[in-house]
Structure formats: C-alpha cells, structure tokens
C-alpha cells in the first residue's frame, strides 16, 4: 500500500470543502460546515478571499461528545434555526474530515432540514481529503442534479445566442469578478448573451444555453453533463485578449451554423482543441528552450497554446496537481500526485524556464531552472503575494513577451 504523501516545501493546497464553499457562496447560499470549527476557519482565513460574498458561512462546531454519540439532532435543529432566521435562497451542508470519518449522513439531514424549512438544502460530499478542484466539481454537479431542468424560455426578448460560463473560481483567478466581467463584455460585443451563474435562477439558465465555455478543469464535468442531457456543445478554454478571437470563432461555429459555414474547416470539433497539448517527450540535445508550466491545467494549456501561436520554438509541458475532473487526457497536461513527482519531473525534464506559483519555485529543484517566472495560483499560495510586485497575478502580456524573448 502506498503511504501518505509528503510535502516539504509546498503548503496544503485549498481543500475540496473550500472549493465547494466558494461556489456556493457565490450563489448566495448559507454554507454550513459540519466541522469542529477549524475547517470553516481554514476556508475563511485562507480561501474565501476578501471580496464580499453574498452568502454567509456557518460552522457547526461539533464537539467530541457529539461526534461519538451522534450529532444529527443538533445539526438538524440548529440548521433549521439559522436558516429560518436568515431565509437564504439556498443552504448547503459541507462535508469535512470529521463528518466523513464519523459517517454523518448529510444527504438525509439535508432532506430533513429542507422539509422543515421549505428552503432548498443540499448536501455536499466533500471530505477534506481532496483538493479544491474536486470541491468545485462536486458543488457544480450537486447543483446541476438539483436545479438543471432545461425547457427553453420562449418569452425571452433577447434572442442572441447564449453562452454559459462554467468553472470559474477564486482559486484560479486572481481577480475573478473583473476577468469574468471582461469575458462577458467581449461575448456581448460579439453578439452573444453570457450566462455567468450568480444565483439559482442564473445557474438553472445554463440548461438553456446554446454553448458553454469551461474555464477550468473543474467546469468540464458540468459542460459534459449539459452536452449529454441538453445537447449543449462546449469548448474548453481560458482565453486572454490575444486568443479571444479563436474562442469566439469556435462559439460562432457552434451557435450560428449559418455563419459557421464561412469558417468551416477552421474550427476543430474537439472541445479541448484550443488548449490541447501534444504529449511531452524529453527534449533532444540541441532542442530550443523547453518550458514547464505548473498550473491549473486549462489555464496552463491555454498559455502554452498561445505561446505556440506566437512562435515559441521550444517544447512546453504543462503539469498540474489538480485533476479531480479527470480531464488531463483531453488537455494533455501531466498530473502530479505530490511534491516529489514534481521534483522528479523537473530533474528529468532539463527545463530552461518555469512558470509556476512562487511557492512551487521554493523547491530546490525549481531553483536550478535558469529562468523562473512566478505567477500566483491562489489554490496554492492564497493571497500571500497579493502585494508583491515581483509576482504576476496571472498570465500577462509582459510574461509572454519575456518568455518569447528567451527563444
């Protein structure tokens, strides 16, 4: 049996319960952690961000006695009390290591609470034993199972093609609200109507979209579900301004078949075509500079694709710690289980440059790569580098320029 993984330089990443809570807070839910106190604290202190969120966070503060004797009655009674006091549009019970180890049946409790309050209550099967991307995926899938029913709204006055935006989270976006607003603006300019879920109604509306964009690996399972159940095609991309044209062309092709005829043949039917990476093989002796990008895989692959478009002559390998959605085969990213695998990859890859979170760059192996470019990934370093001018908040134009200069 493989023993536990071990980390000398990297901190614990944002957990699945943080990922799930972040999605739910974004929809205005009351988020109830079934924890002794520290899980909600972990989320609030490290991962909730400082931007005001519409939902409230509650910790159950379960005690040792109650975990031994059964905390169900207290959880139900106090959830009802809190929910009836605040009347949120939605409430969720968030699983933690304590609830998973003691086998608290959150689904049954959620049903009892909902019956009593009349307010939708969801149970999230997070455990605290996985990373944030698993939590984002669990939250989206739980919401989808409950709130996606489809049925086009014929009374809608706006007849522009609608595009659902999936999988955005504060863990992958340094300035999520601004970046989403910019994407929505570009879509609107191009004649699309963006749907960015911010409440239950807009989430439900995703089933009425004409296309979806999965902005992260966590959004891909929901995109696939929308395609499977509602016939909504999707594309996987994390566009920047320079690559927005290609994304919009894809969406045109999907949403406007007539218009698409003019670009037929230019757009691949593969949803991951915009970010797919060729499998990496160790570079040949005289090959051009090779680059390692350690990141959320859709973001990393999109960067690599853009570099290729700009004429980057070397090889680029994208590696990620986050593949709970099991999409790495589609994106071509390399999945890392722990710090030691990353160390081995770096040693074996003989890279000339690395783009990664500053905490990844603390590893001695990373320190031996000649060119190092720190870019924040909040799932790793939270807001530790928010005020550090040497660390980029995302993949900026000047980062690309510096990388291309290496070639």
């Amino acid at each position, binding site marked *: 049996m493989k023993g536990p993984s071990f980390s000398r330089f990297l901190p614990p990443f944002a957990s699945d319960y943080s990922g799930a809570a972040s999605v739910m807070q974004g929809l205005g839910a009351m988020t109830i952690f079934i924890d002794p106190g520290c899980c909600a604290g972990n989320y609030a202190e490290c991962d909730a961000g400082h931007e005001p969120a519409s939902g409230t966070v509650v910790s159950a503060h379960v005690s040792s006695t109650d975990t031994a004797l059964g905390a169900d009655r207290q959880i139900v009674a*106090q959830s009802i009390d809190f929910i009836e006091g605040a009347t949120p549009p939605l409430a969720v019970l968030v699983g933690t290591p304590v609830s*998973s180890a003691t086998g608290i049946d959150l689904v049954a409790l959620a049903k009892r609470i909902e019956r009593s309050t009349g307010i939708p209550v969801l149970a999230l099967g997070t455990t605290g034993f996985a990373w944030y991307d698993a939590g984002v995926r669990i939250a989206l899938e739980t919401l989808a199972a409950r709130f996606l029913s489809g049925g086009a709204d014929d009374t809608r006055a706006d007849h522009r093609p609608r595009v659902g935006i999936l999988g955005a989270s504060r863990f992958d976006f340094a300035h999520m609200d601004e970046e989403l607003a910019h994407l929505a603006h570009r879509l609107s300019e191009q004649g699309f109507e963006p749907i960015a879920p911010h409440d239950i109604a807009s989430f439900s509306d995703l089933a009425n979209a004409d296309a979806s964009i999965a902005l992260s690996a966590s959004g891909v399972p929901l995109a696939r579900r929308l395609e499977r159940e509602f016939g909504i095609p999707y594309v996987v991309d994390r566009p920047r301004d320079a690559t927005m044209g290609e994304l919009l062309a894809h969406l045109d092709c999907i949403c406007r078949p007539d218009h698409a005829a003019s670009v037929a043949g230019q757009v691949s039917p593969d949803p991951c075509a915009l970010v797919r990476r060729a499998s990496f093989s160790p570079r040949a002796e005289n090959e051009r500079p090779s680059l390692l990008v350690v990141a959320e895989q859709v973001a990393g692959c999109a960067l690599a694709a853009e570099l290729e478009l700009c004429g980057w002559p070397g090889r680029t390998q994208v590696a990620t710690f986050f593949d709970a959605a099991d999409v790495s085969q589609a994106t071509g990213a390399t999945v890392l289980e722990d710090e030691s695998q990353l160390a081995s990859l770096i040693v074996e890859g003989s890279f000339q440059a690395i783009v990664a979170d500053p905490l990844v760059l603390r590893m001695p192996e990373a320190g031996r790569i000649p060119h190092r470019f720190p870019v924040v990934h909040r799932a790793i370093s939270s807001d530790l580098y928010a005020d550090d001018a040497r660390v980029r908040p995302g993949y900026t134009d000047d980062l690309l320029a510096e990388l291309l200069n290496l070639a």
Partner: protein
Amino acid sequence: MHSNGPAACGKPHTVALPVILKAESMTEFRYHIPHPEHHRDQLRIPECHTLHACPPACARHSALRALRNGEGSDYSFCFLSLLDMALGGQEEHIAATVDELLERLDPTPRAFLVKLYCIDELVGTDAHAIAALLSKRHPDIVFSVVRSSPLVKRGTHDDRMQAGVYDLLEKTGERDWGVNLIGRFNPIPASSEFMTTLGEWGISTVRSVASCKTFEEYRRIADSALNLSVSWMGQATVLELQRKLDIPSLFFKPAYAVDEVDGNYRRLYETLRDIEARTRMADAPRCPWALEPPSRTSACHAARVRAEQAVARAREAIGNIPIALDTFATFFPFSMACALLGYGFNVKTVFALHVKSDDAVARSQLEQDYPAVQVVAHAKSAMLGEGHAGGQADVLSIGSDAATMTGSTMFLDLFHDEGCFGYDGIVRLMDGLVEAYENGHATIGEEEDRR
C-alpha cells in the same frame, strides 16, 4: 485571586488559579464573521522542526501563516488519506515520514514535533506509539507528539492553544531567579512598564519561548523560579508545568481597570516575596531580588499615573458615545466592560460570541451593577442578514465582531489583547479609543509595535 506563595525549591505548592471554563460539550452553530487581516505570530521552539500529520485539508492556515512570517522552512506536512485512516498503521507511516525528513533536513533539528489533528481523536491514532518509535530510532533528537484539535473538551489536558511548545521542557536540576512568561505568542510590548518594574525588583531574567534564539535557551525555561501566565492561553500550560517541573505559577490577567492591574502587580510581588522567603529557609544562595510593593516601585507607580491620565483624556474626548466590545478584542470582555463602565464610559453592548476564558465573576458584576448593558452571546441570523447588522453607526466598536454586528463607523481594531499589557495596556486602549473616535479607525497590536 491570591497566590499561596509557591516555593522555588523543595515541595511544590499548589496555587489557586481560576477554574477554566467548562464549556458545554454540545454542538453549537456559529456564524463566521469576517475579520480584518492581522499579523499572527506562531510560537516556535528554536532548532525544532514540526511535521503536521493530517488530512490534506488541515493545516493550510498554519502553513500560510508560517510562510507569511518567514518561517516556512520549519514545517513539513504528511497528508493522510481516508484509506490510511481506515486501514490503520498511520503511526508507522508518520514515523517513516519523519525518518525520510530527517535524512533531508540540514542541519538536523535538535527537537521534533509531530502535530496530529481532530481526525486522530476519532480514529485513535496512538501518539505515544509514534513518540516511542521515533525516540528509539533517533535517540539524539527530542520528540513530542501533540494533538491540535478543536474537538476536545475545553479545560482538558489536550486543550492547550500552544500545545506542544512546552512539552519538550524537562527538569534540568538547575534553578535560577528567572521569571517565565507563558501564554503569549510574542514578547511584552516594549513600552510596557512590566520589564522596568521587574528590573527595579532585581529580576533581570525574563524568559519566554517567543524570545528564545536557541534550543539551549529554550531548555533553560525549566530553570526559572516562577511561571507567569499572562493570557488565558497560558493557564492550562502553567498548571502542567507546575506538575512536571515544580515551578510555581501565577496568573497575571490581562486587565484594563487600574485597580485590577495594581492587584496583578501586588500578587506578583507577594508571590516573589514568598519564593524569596522559602529560598532563604532552604539555605539557597541569596536571592538577588530587591522587592518593594508596587506602590513604592517608581516604574509601576509612574505607569499607573500615566494610565489614570489617559483615562481622563479619553473620557473628556469621547464623552457619552455608546461603546460595543467583543471577545475578538479581548479574552476578558466582561472585565473590560466593567473597567470602562467604572471609568464612566457608556458601554452599551458586549458581543460575547467566542467566550474562551473564565470571566464569570466580571460577568456577574456586569449583570448586577449594569443591567442595561446588552450581552449578545450568539450572532443572530437577522442581525447578519446581508453580512452586516447595521443601524448603529454612532457606536464606537472595540473589536471586529462588534464593528460588524453594529455596522459602526468608529472602529478600534484590537485582537486578543495583543499590544496591551499592564498599565501601558490601559494607556494604549484609551489612546486607541480617542483615535478611533476622531479618525474612524485605530489599531492596537503587534503590527503597530513593529512599525
């Protein structure tokens, strides 16, 4: 509270410490109220490495705090899976991880802490077995395996906020005239009269983990004559050290009433005098102390005068503005409320959302003498409806719970009494109140000290 005069040598004497609050062992839902960012020190033993053995979700805040404080290289993490927990054998897994770590760490640490989390309470991880395994394999290193779990009942052995930090102390056979400060994450503020007062009494050795630079310095904490618990967090620890190291102890409660601070110094004086007397009786080397009652100690007396002047200034500046305070600002909110009311301030509300310390006497006094003061024990849903209670903009809030709950526009940011100690603490509190009243915001704390 009165000390019975613990001895520096010979048989240990029991000391009347306040009873630690026995919290109801019941699940109790609480809102998380957003707080402003604060610098948070972590107590660390010099030349010691810590391994957090936990599910991947846990310890993120500890790791990020350590990194923020520039101490990231002192910590490592061993991520246990649910399968590891279910199948057992995590003791051996953890020990194997420590073995691997020790091969890599350069220099080799003098001491090693393994920190377990709540889940280990539930699956019964054997902390003693881990410590025994490790001590056998690495006899030159001192090991301790500690639990950090909010699941445990308050007041029990394992409920020590700074669990593990003092566990590596052992009797050295030496005893000197040092005084230990237990329960703080950082040294006493430089502006406090405390060190000068002790200096006047002839006490030049004041020890705390936060000020130790080497493991040897840390070990000498066990040589001191007195453990002074200077925070709620130190109370369980000093009792444990009294049992383990025969060091008598005293609680120097964080206080904001001039008379209460005076009482702290008087009890300290009496306790030290008692130690001195017992030492003479035991024919030990003559004590270097030159004890005088606090009223005749110039540093102490001058500080008291400064505190009284600060109170008068603040009263005049603030007038009858309503004040709300909370358990985020101070571990002793009812004591602070009584102190402020005693000075004539208009305290309206105490938000006691996270009571940790035993402040029951002050609470009774508050309820009896000032029945109009509202005590809010739970954040109510309606108050937080949109994240803010609002509607009380004219309140001067001490602590961020109070600021959020009232929606006040005057906020004194004080966090767990940090930055306040002794008479100097009263001066800082009063100056902070005036600044918050005049400018809308003020901060007291270690960050301020660093500036």
